[in-house]
């Protein structure tokens, strides 16, 4: 199926199976910040913005992104600068596999003028898993980004 869409501010005309996962379609274009963690919508490592909403790209089918606007971390590099720097300085990163998903969700939360208290931040991160850092530093990084 011919899929027209805008990914990271660039127009694409893709010949793909409509049933392909958007995660695979994007990665095969060389855009590799979305990672496959669980492949079941639990870990959030594959998070992308789909028409402005953060979703799991492993549960999104190519047919759904016809005429859509997609943004990954690559397309939001400047916008996520504060969050990324706070992840670095608070040590909210170890192996890095979950980080692009966490940075996008944190940016999303901060941008939507999220509440600064710790429990609200933890609630907001309910769709992202990290198996290295233990979350506290990630929560600290998000709160720091709302200073």
């Amino acid at each position, binding site marked *: 199926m011919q899929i027209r869409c805008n990914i990271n501010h660039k127009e694409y005309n893709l010949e793909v199976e409509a*049933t392909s996962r958007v995660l695979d379609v994007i990665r095969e274009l060389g855009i590799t910040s979305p990672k496959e963690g669980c492949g079941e919508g639990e870990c959030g490592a594959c998070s992308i913005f789909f028409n402005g909403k953060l*979703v799991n790209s492993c549960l999104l089918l190519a047919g*759904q992104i016809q005429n859509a606007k997609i943004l990954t971390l690559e397309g939001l590099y400047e916008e996520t600068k504060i969050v990324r720097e706070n992840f670095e300085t608070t040590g909210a990163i170890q192996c890095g596999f979950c980080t692009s998903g966490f940075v996008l969700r944190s940016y999303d939360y901060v941008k939507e003028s999220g509440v600064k208290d710790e429990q609200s931040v933890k609630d907001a991160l309910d769709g992202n898993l990290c198996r290295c850092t233990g979350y506290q530093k990630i929560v600290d990084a998000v709160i720091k980004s709302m200073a």
Partner: protein
Amino acid sequence: MKYLIAKNLDDALTLREENPNFTLLFGASDIALKMKNNQVSGVVDLTHLDELSYIRKNENSIKIGALTTINAILQNRDITQFIPILSEASKEFASHQIRNIASLAGNVANASPVADMIAPLLVLNAKVTLLSSKGERTIFLSDLIIGFKSLDLNNEIITSFEIEIQKRQHYYRKVGPRAKLNIAKLSLAMVKQDERYFISGASLNPYVKRFTNLEELLNGKNYSDVDIKEAMDKDISPSGSFRSTKEYRRKVLFNMLGEALGKFAI
């Protein structure tokens, strides 16, 4: 596998009629996984029908379009104010990323025994509007879900839900192994309206349905714990599964009923 995209509602009805056995996509967060395992023969993608995504408050009711996402419900102030049980259920639904794409109709149409949104809709006496090329009909949701993952549909598409605005007390609790991204071991949804109880819960039957024996008992004046347990056992047939055991589900449901009745008594 065939993947057909509906461009508008008329298109959707035609595709539905021509392909009665195809799975309808209302968001795909459930179906995408089944597709990975080759459990789907064909799909009609309805996710491009923006006209089915809305929340409208009328004088006496709130109408929710089929494709409205769980996060849209969670963030809607009319729903928080007039149907708070739906906000509470939405808050505990999956994760932020899934709530951004999973739709109300998708959760209902999948008709899973563990679906989060069906029990609250049932105790709100929600109506559902179904559309086909032959016309439209509006029925109670309780008449739509007729068995395990089974709906009483005739080449129809769910287009909207409607919930009356009423003065209600409510109780909702979902019990599972973790705080977030939680799949229920069981849940209890309960509404008290005009001194009458409406009760349902997930993961306690092959499909989510109203607990009519409990409703009848509690709407009467006198009952004991023994009566509640007897009525409960008529209403539920929990399976033991990898998520929980029959005995755990029975015990916790009984305890939650006590908690709910305590809350309503205040």
